[in-house]
């Protein structure tokens, strides 16, 4: 921070590139429009005017994985859907994050059976787990804020 003394009060802020980039990433996460089961209803209401996810820079749900940074796995993932989910994850450009929303996505929930993946972390790496069946929109927003805290601390070298 030696620049101010030399240049005077010119409104210049200096910070590390890492901080600046993480700040930009944190406040413009575009989630993917991807609902799998009942939890998706809560994800939609999180998005809608009552809870208004756009307060956190997430007003755009992208319908294409190639335009999104965050995959909210909202609901149970059947074994038939699993390769599709992984495919979508692989199509997302880095940096990318995953939130497992609800008990089903986190650990299989009540569906401890042959048809459902026992936690989406078996097929994609998960950053934040949100508990609840379904989690209320407040819980999802809390999960997203936790993710934002995590992104702020991420080293730049993680996404190469």
């Amino acid at each position, binding site marked *: 921070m030696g620049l101010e003394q030399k240049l005077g009060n010119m409104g210049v802020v200096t910070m590390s590139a890492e901080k600046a980039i993480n700040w930009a990433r944190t406040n413009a996460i575009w989630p993917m429009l991807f609902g799998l089961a009942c939890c998706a209803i809560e994800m939609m209401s999180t998005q809608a005017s009552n809870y208004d996810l756009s307060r956190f820079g997430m007003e755009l749900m992208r319908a294409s994985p190639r335009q999104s940074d965050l995959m909210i796995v909202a609901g149970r993932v059947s*074994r*038939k859907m699993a*390769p599709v989910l*992984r495919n979508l994850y692989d199509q997302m450009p880095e940096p990318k994050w995953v939130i497992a929303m609800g008990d089903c996505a986190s650990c*299989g929930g009540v569906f*401890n*059976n*042959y*048809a459902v993946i*026992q*936690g989406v*972390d*078996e*097929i*994609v*790496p998960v950053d934040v787990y949100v508990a609840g069946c379904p989690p209320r929109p407040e819980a999802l927003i809390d999960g997203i804020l936790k993710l934002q805290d995590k992104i702020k601390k991420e080293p730049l070298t993680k996404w190469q």
Partner: protein
Amino acid sequence: MEQTVTTANLDATVAALGDAVNDVRVFRDEVTLITTKGRVVEVLTHLRDAQHFDMLTDETCVDYLPKEPRFAILYQLYSTSRNIRVRVKVMLSEYDRSIPTAAGVWIAANWLEREIYDLFGINFENHPDLRRIMMPPGWEGHPLLKENPVKVEEVAFTFNRERVEADKPRAQE
């Protein structure tokens, strides 16, 4: 008002089918005709043409595991013109899991039989397209058979948590 095949018109139906029907059960006004695998297509065709059961609402299977005969194939029929319902039941042995297809009688049986094949492994003879319909194409086994375990994953408590977590598959980046 909706009614099932009543005892009044049931006798005529059963008489017309002759010895193709082994047994008739009436429970709470629901009629079940029990037949054999060799004559089921004949019974179904008669019910469709002579008794106007023009709709196959469902076809399904039951696995009564310790018992023999082990499987039951059930046909739920509905007549739109008469507004009555009837059920046809065929018992199948554990050692002969095959039955002639009903897809030639009602086209709706095509996918219903694919579902039974997928989940119970019953082979439908002369079925036009007997492939899996629910499970992924590479799936091994038939998940609704009773010999399959109910749970796929041990439930984690404090005493077994570490072992359960260690066995769990994890995704790579």
